[in-house]
């Protein structure tokens, strides 16, 4: 049976499927380690050496060190894992969402209070290329 991956047409979205999960395994397991306070402390003390414990690609390491949140997702990160890195930095889910969408914290918060990002115009990649 062929599995459908028609979800790839959804814009600005990385569906955490088998391909992503395999690509991001070590990146996500690094993020998972930050669930423990002593690991958070060790990471904060020396990020580069802490990351050496994990067999991540150089691109993934650079994305983590540079806090390139969308790059982490593109390279196989999952938001529930990368949010643990964000929490280590003292960022909330909403702060993180603001950064990933290129908005200021206030702009993003205002968008949410006004009902969020609308579905119209955000269903298909074709709608984004037309507009942008």
């Amino acid at each position: 049976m062929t599995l459908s991956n028609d979800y790839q047409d959804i814009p600005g979205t990385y569906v955490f499927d088998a391909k992503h999960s395999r690509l991001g395994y070590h990146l996500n397991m690094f993020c998972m380690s930050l669930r423990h306070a002593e690991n958070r402390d060790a990471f904060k003390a020396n990020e580069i050496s802490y990351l050496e414990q994990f067999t991540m690609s150089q691109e993934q390491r650079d994305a983590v060190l540079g806090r390139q949140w969308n790059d982490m997702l593109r390279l196989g990160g999952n938001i529930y894992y990368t949010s643990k890195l964000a929490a280590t930095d003292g960022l909330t889910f909403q702060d993180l969402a603001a950064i990933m969408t290129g908005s200021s914290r206030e702009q993003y918060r205002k968008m949410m209070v006004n009902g969020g990002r609308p579905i119209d115009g955000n269903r298909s990649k074709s709608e984004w290329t037309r507009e942008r």
Partner: protein
Amino acid sequence: MVTAASRNGRVSAKIVGGVATSHVPAIGAAIDQGKTTDDYWAPLFKGFEKSQKWVKDLNPDVAIVVYNDHATAFSLELIPTFALGCAEEFPIADEGWGARPVPPVCGHPDLAWHIAQSLILDEFDLTIANRLEVDHGLTVPLSLLFGQPARWPCPVIPLCVNVVQYPPPTGNRCYNLGKAIQRAVESFDEDLRVVVFGTGGMSHQLQAERAGLINSEFDNRFLDDLVNRPDKARAIPHLEYLREAGSEGIELVMWLVMRGALSKKVREIHRHYHVPASNTAVGHLILENDLP
């Protein structure tokens, strides 16, 4: 009132209500930090006042809480599609910002093990969890319904559903699991009154450039269909959840486990819908079986 016990001529457990609610971590933080009456949060919490009274009056013996783990107890090392918590106690997890200051969750191993055995023989091959730290997915719904007690008013059986690794189980599979849970509960020879929680959702996307997506039209149709046309709700394909309700809105399949555990016809006791809680549209239902 005709109860499962009196119908069968023997004592048995029965499902006496269903709760659906979002489980946004920021809601837990607002409760823990005493912000529930702030302008931002007050309208959200107002919608749970009636529910707190309902559950207090109902005084259930056990709550089965269908939720998902958010890279807390389960990492990418092990990804069970369905895992049932059979332990005596479930510790509150540190998810990366410290554990929530809420009481530990006590289990109900007798009923949980009975359900696990019954489900497996009923061809739902779930994972048995004897050690399970629980995260906001489980504790936020407890806080919303039970407030801030020194200890939770009833034992809890966690049913953890994978919705992080794609694909999660289908809505139809979740609904049928709910039916099997109903059969399992009703075959337990003890007079227990059980409430089933379906948690997560509603529309939200936490990741990447489309983060912040909210689709109130989808959400309200889902609420209507879940209550009155469950056959329609359980047929929603994954693509529709992902596209219309956001990549994390697919958590709504967990509401279908709760719905499946109730009778075909239900009474809607209460409904609440509020946008936003942080990045999420919050939906909430209280349902009771509408028995003939």
